[in-house]
């Protein structure tokens, strides 16, 4: 078993995919579809310590500062950390669970040549999230969970709800 593990490690050059979501609803929804990337090595990014025990089982992870309205310092720190993470990991794809913390990771990822996927939360019933609206031009595959939203935004796609 050890030999086999070492063999994989040797061939593993880097993490292909970056997964980002704040814990709670966003992470819950994204992990509903985790088989989508189970054939690729991935690293994980979240914003709260409560995600750590789960991430420890899944692979490499980063906990970044919470960003959002009324959290200027946290947001600035989070922007900088996202830049450092993207520069270090250089993932080919970033998949965001649609929380604020994914905005900067997707933005920097796009600048460094990553493809970006955004799964907007089912909680956004009347409109896509504020973060989603801001980052929409930088997202390659933007998935929403309410069909009526595809009428308002040409670029978004609907395949059903993940919950």
């Amino acid at each position, binding site marked *: 078993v050890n030999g086999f593990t070492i063999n994989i490690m040797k061939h*593993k050059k880097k993490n292909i995919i970056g997964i980002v979501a704040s814990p709670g609803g*966003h*992470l*819950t929804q994204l992990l509903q579809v985790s088989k989508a990337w189970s054939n690729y090595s991935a690293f994980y990014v979240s914003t709260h310590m409560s995600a750590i*025990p789960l991430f420890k089982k899944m692979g490499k992870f980063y906990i970044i500062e919470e960003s959002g309205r009324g959290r200027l310092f946290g947001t600035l720190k989070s922007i900088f950390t996202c830049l450092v993470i993207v520069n270090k990991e250089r993932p080919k794809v970033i998949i965001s669970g649609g929380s604020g913390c994914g905005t900067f990771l997707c933005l920097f990822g796009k600048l460094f040549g990553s493809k970006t996927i955004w799964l907007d939360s089912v909680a956004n*019933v009347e409109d896509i999230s504020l973060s989603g609206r801001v980052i929409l031009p930088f997202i390659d595959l933007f*998935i929403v969970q309410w069909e009526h939203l595809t009428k308002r935004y040409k670029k978004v796609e609907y*395949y059903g709800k993940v*919950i």
Partner: protein
Amino acid sequence: MIFLTVGSMLPFDRLVKSVDIAAGKGEINDTIFAQIGSTEFLPKYIDYVETLNRIEYMEVFKSSKAVISHAGIGTISIALKYRKPLLVVPRLKKYNEIVNNHQLNTANRFLNEGYILKSDDTNMISERINELSKFIPKKRTDNSYRVEKKINDYLKKILDKTDLLYK
């Protein structure tokens, strides 16, 4: 045991207080275990913790008879998955509990489809809690595999075979 959970990001004293008071008066026909977040208000009549990590959370969730929570989509989706009777109290903007009323919209959508119970008013909370024992949530239709397939197809399209973990 009924599990009361308000998420780890923000306190939700209005809900925790009302359940604590109802429990203190003996109005609730079951025991309560609460996850209350970091808050100044500490319950007197119910068992509680500040936060649970994800694994602990799932254990408590699965072993509970029913769940009371804010209208967070994480809790709603787990409740639907395990078909737990769920009573949600949406966080409301007018009480400064959240930045907008999206929890109310979410709650109404799921309420109208028969997935959950809802209470906007916390004064009557004990009656709604006691309804949980009779409430059978509608079974959800799981479309997550369609979203999963779309993402997987997209990854296959843009990534090389050499990117696969097990070649």
